[in-house]
């Protein structure tokens, strides 16, 4: 045990001191912060361009409404200090009379290319009168077709106007229609609870952010820990093999002690990493006063699943690494293990969508997915029944123990091996040796 701790300690210090750890882990929040700050900045850099668009109005009656709607809209984007907070849309009418449509549209296209216009739009003659069978589209032509605010606004403004005209033509009061069409919103609540003294506690309105913030935070944290730990173990063990350190180590400790020491070191690093992030998360919670985001019970499960995941995947990575003689071999050996992790990670989003579906329940029982899937299910009310949690955790712990054991069997043979990497069936044979 002493030796194992010595190795764990050395592994821990070595890993924490690596540039990859410091940059990748400690600066991750800084990078994320910088990213969000940039996004916020970029969003504030609003588009205040003046965009002139031509309207070919075959109905002959809609252009005025479009121009007025554009002016109303433009006025909304003028701040108190006179600065603009949005683009300015300016409509200009084109009289199609006596011209071939193709010629006219070609001319307008050239004007768009010359930057005189931003776009032009053609409103069909039957726009107001068309029945649903006859309806033909409003045509919007632009060079920058990916710019959406203008066509989106046009679609809305024109349709609103067309609808009003149709009500008028049918002699219907549109104010009445609006009132009759008023929609009633729906809010989601958790369940009411009856306290011991018989009073009924008010149900909490469910906030999507509050429900998912912490589980998602933990999910990403676990994924990151497992990836960091796995990559490090793989690199470390191959470096030891390549620089012939392994046999020196085996002259002092057993393969199991070596493997266990490395795993413990990495679990320690995962816990360190997690605590750094949890402190950061706690700070955010306190700073924002969003205590409703907290789910204290989940921390226990998270830590349990994190330790198991680090041990489980760590022992797989170590066993694979010990069987390889260089990093290139390792990359190909690694793919099955990476698939397991990616499946677990991506599968988690299936669980988030519907935690009680049979797929989600099945995944939470599959040992390599349990840490991710079961944690999410526990996080989302009503949560799985206790027996499911126990079965999942039991399976996970058993698999973890098996992987550490099998890993140490492979490790024992692989660590002294040089040359060609074995195939997966050969690895399985080593377990039985």
């Amino acid at each position, binding site marked *: 045990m002493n*030796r194992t701790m010595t190795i764990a300690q*050395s592994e821990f210090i*070595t890993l924490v001191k690596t540039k990859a750890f410091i940059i990748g882990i400690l600066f991750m929040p800084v990078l994320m912060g910088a990213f969000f700050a940039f996004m916020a900045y970029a969003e504030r850099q609003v588009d205040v361009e003046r965009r002139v668009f031509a309207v070919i109005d075959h109905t002959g009656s809609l252009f005025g409404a479009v121009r007025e709607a554009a002016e109303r809209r433009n006025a909304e984007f003028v701040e108190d200090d006179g600065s603009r907070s949005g683009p300015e849309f300016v409509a200009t009418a084109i009289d199609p009379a006596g011209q071939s449509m193709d010629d006219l549209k070609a001319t307008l296209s050239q004007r768009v290319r010359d930057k005189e216009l931003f776009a032009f739009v053609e409103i069909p003659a039957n726009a107001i009168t068309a029945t649903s069978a006859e309806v033909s589209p409003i045509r919007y032509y632009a060079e920058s077709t990916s710019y959406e605010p203008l066509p989106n606004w046009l679609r809305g403004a024109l349709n609103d106007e067309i609808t009003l005209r149709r009500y008028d033509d049918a002699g219907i009061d549109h104010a009445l229609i609006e009132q009759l069409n008023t929609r009633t919103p729906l809010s989601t609540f958790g369940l009411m609870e009856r306290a011991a003294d018989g009073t009924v506690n008010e149900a909490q309105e469910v906030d999507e952010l509050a429900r998912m913030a912490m589980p998602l935070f933990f999910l990403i944290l676990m994924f990151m820990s497992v990836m960091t730990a796995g990559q490090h173990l793989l690199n470390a063990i191959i470096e030891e093999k390549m620089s*012939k350190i392994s*046999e*020196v180590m085996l002259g002092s400790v057993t393969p199991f002690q070596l493997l266990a020491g490395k795993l413990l070191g990495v679990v320690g690093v995962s816990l360190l990493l997690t605590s750094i992030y949890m402190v950061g998360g706690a700070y955010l919670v306190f700073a924002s006063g969003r205590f409703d985001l907290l789910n204290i019970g989940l921390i226990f499960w998270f830590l349990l699943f994190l330790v198991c995941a680090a041990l489980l995947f760590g022992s797989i990575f170590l066993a694979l690494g010990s069987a390889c003689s260089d990093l290139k071999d390792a990359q190909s050996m690694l793919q099955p293990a990476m698939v397991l992790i990616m499946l677990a990670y991506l599968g988690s989003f299936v669980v988030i969508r519907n935690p009680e579906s049979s797929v989600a329940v099945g995944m939470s029982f599959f040992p390599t997915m349990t840490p991710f899937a079961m944690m999410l299910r526990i996080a989302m009310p009503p949560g799985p029944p206790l027996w499911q949690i126990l079965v999942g955790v039991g399976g996970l712990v058993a698999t973890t123990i098996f992987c550490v054991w099998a890993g140490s069997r492979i490790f024992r043979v692989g660590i*002294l091996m040089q040359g060609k990497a074995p195939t997966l069936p050969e690895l399985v044979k080593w377990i039985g040796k």
Partner: protein
Amino acid sequence: MTPAIAVSGISKRFGEHRAVNNVSIEVPEGSIYGFIGPNGSGKTTTIRMIMNILVPDAGQIHVLGRPTASGVRDEVGYLPEERGLYKKMTVRRVLRYYGQLKGKPASEIDTATRDWLARLQLTDWADKKVEQLSKGMAQKVQFIAAVVSTPKLLILDEPFSGLDPVNAEALKDAVLEMRRRGTTIVFSTHDMHTAERMCERIFMIFKGNKVLDGTLDEIQAEYGYDTARVRTAGGASLLAGMPSVESINDHGNYQDVKLNGDPQAFLHQLVQKTTVQHFEVRRPSLHDIFVRIAQPSEEDLKAGEGGAL
């Protein structure tokens, strides 16, 4: 007195290959024991079994009177043939780490580290990273790593291979220093001169079987005075084809000739053919014995010379 290493009837197979076959050795406490044998003959496998890195298929191994699988390895310093150091660690830290893995307290290790670094002129490098060391320096640090825990038994697999004469000499002195302190030493080597000079007892393994085991005297006595060292005006070409010459080991300036007849008769014939400058009847050298047993390929010989002192 309990022997430092008692190996009885160990065998090890790798698939169809018999790496070690029913080998027994007894290494007396306080001695220097040489393991010799061509490449791939089972030296390293035997050493790995003594270190409990490999488990023998059959037979028993006791080290310092205890089964090798017990914690006895803490008392054994081991320098494997394939050895390395953590490149990013400082010399001091790597030595402390290796010492701690033998279960020694840090204070004891630090004292021994200081002592050994000074002895091998590495004091200035104590806080440098391993990757900054030259190859010779790294090899000396590796040796220190094996002795920093002050072991009772020291096992060195090819300790002198690839060293320049100055560093090899320094390392040889260090080994002898360990011996003076009462440490039992086992080392394997390709270099017969080193084995002859340093080892009290020599063990040779060939194709997994023990072929020699004893003091140099005992081994040579088995072969008797069957060799003549000859320097003549005519040189090696003259000797070939002469009656009673069984084989010739040409050293250039002189030749060692294995005889299957009377040395005096051979001398008589020789004098009639050429001017004899030197003639000495002697026992075969360890090198000659090695060659007679192993008849190694050219490559083996080259590898052996590469590791020469």
